[in-house]
């Protein structure tokens, strides 16, 4: 099996706090991989190590081996690495000074995914369609994100991440701050990407992980306590923490 992400003995310290402890993880290529666990367990930190956004965290120190798309992520040029690894954040953060079109086009242009203006238009349309937003904004491409709803903004962020044609997509609780209707659309969009690229999704919702993910890892207090196929983990959880988490007791 080929792996998009291979992590061994990963330890992360943030200003002396041991945020991730001896994490070992392999994410199969083309799969949707859910990372679950209580707040503060290190899920977002794990994503930020994969695309090196951890570099922005003051006082962060990373040890171990992290291979992303065959590259040693901790030694690679972070800007080059991020061109292959898209990310969507918990709070929708489209660029407020750019129009809907520009928000999507900027990542396609930056990453050399397009040549001509026509090609760019096609990529923007494809990304917005894949993010299930095209029908809602096709006549408002020149408007600003402040005129969209929270859920539409989050889907715009998905379109922005997709327009760069990433091989790996990191989703940090993508439906946490949006209404159920938008959450469903976003989830459908994510599910439609299965097989096309590798997705690592942090989520608090076991049902969502069960619906969408092929694999699940449970992280608790900076440690991966259990991981395997989502059926295995949800149907026969072997670790006490997983059992408690699924019952909503941790």
């Amino acid at each position, binding site marked *: 099996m080929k792996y998009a992400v291979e992590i061994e003995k990963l330890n992360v310290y943030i200003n002396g706090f041991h945020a991730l402890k001896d994490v070992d993880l392999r994410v199969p290529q083309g799969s949707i991989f859910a990372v679950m666990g209580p707040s503060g367990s290190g899920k977002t930190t794990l994503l930020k190590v994969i695309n090196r956004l951890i570099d922005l965290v003051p006082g962060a120190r990373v040890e171990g081996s992290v291979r992303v798309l065959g590259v040693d992520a901790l030694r690679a040029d972070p*800007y080059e690495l*991020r061109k292959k690894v898209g990310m969507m*954040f918990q709070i929708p953060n489209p*660029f*407020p000074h750019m129009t809907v079109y520009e928000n999507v086009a900027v990542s396609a242009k930056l990453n050399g995914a397009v040549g001509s203006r026509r090609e760019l238009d096609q990529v923007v349309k494809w990304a917005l369609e894949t993010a299930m937003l095209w029908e809602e904004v096709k006549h408002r491409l020149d408007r600003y994100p402040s005129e969209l709803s929270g859920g539409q903004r989050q889907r715009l962020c998905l379109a922005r991440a997709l327009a760069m044609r990433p091989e790996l997509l990191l989703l940090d609780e993508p439906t946490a701050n949006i209404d159920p209707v938008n959450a469903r659309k976003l989830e459908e969009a994510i599910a439609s990407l299965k097989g096309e690229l590798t997705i690592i999704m942090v989520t608090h919702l076991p049902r969502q992980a069960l619906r969408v993910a092929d694999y699940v890892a449970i992280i608790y207090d900076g440690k991966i306590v259990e991981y395997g196929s989502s059926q295995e983990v949800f149907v026969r959880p072997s670790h006490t923490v997983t059992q408690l988490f699924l019952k909503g007791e941790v």
Partner: protein
Amino acid sequence: MASWAVRKLEDRLFVVAVVLGSALALAPLAHALAVTLYNGLSTMARAGLGFFVNPPPTPYSASLGGVAPALVGSLLLLALALPPSAFLGLLLAVFTNEFPGSRAAALVEVGARAFTSVPTVILSMVAYSLLVVPTRSYSALAGAFALTAASLPYSYTAFSSALRMVPEMYREAAYSIGMSRWTTVWRVLVPIARRGIASGVLMTLTRILGETAALLFAVGALRYVVPLNPLGPVDALPLLIFDYALSPYKLFHEVAWGAAALLLIISLALFALSKVVVKGVRL
């Protein structure tokens, strides 16, 4: 627990106290503005268009004359001092925003604070010894040097706080799509902070237009000729106001009022223009 009526009364009293306090604090400023505009506009009305194109009067002139040399001098000084002050201020603000924990950034911060408290007349003396003495001439350039130094801490502080107001999540978003640090700065952070940056430019501009002491030993006073040479002496509106307001001649006092009102109108007009031209970003 206080009853609803008591809380409502307390709320009203608090609002009244705040409004009265604000009115008291703003009253002297409003008075100064009103007096300046009243006296200045009266002068301008009597002088007509000549106020903007004529040189100032002599003490016993029959006509009011104008402030053309000082006005052109001020604009020339502004043209020479604003770009370096705004550009350097922005560069320094970007630097300290990008490398907040570095020693160089701490040095810039301390330097900016220290520079704000340096009397601007000292900067004028520095300009005198560095530029006026070697060239043997007062000049707009020496004045612009002093004005740049005087306004730089203000432009830096304004730009720096504008950049700090940009939420960190936009930097993360930019990095996540493969933008480099500098592309992020110029394509994301600075455009998002553009309203604050425009206010910073305006603050710098008004500081440059209104500064008097920084010019005392630097520009000379080419009071009766419209200056066109940046390497030669110039006059400026604040210098003219300072000199004429202290003179014993009534005619000069009137010209000083007119010049003060003109300075005020230019500043307010530019302020209004910046609000119209630079649209804020709705986050």
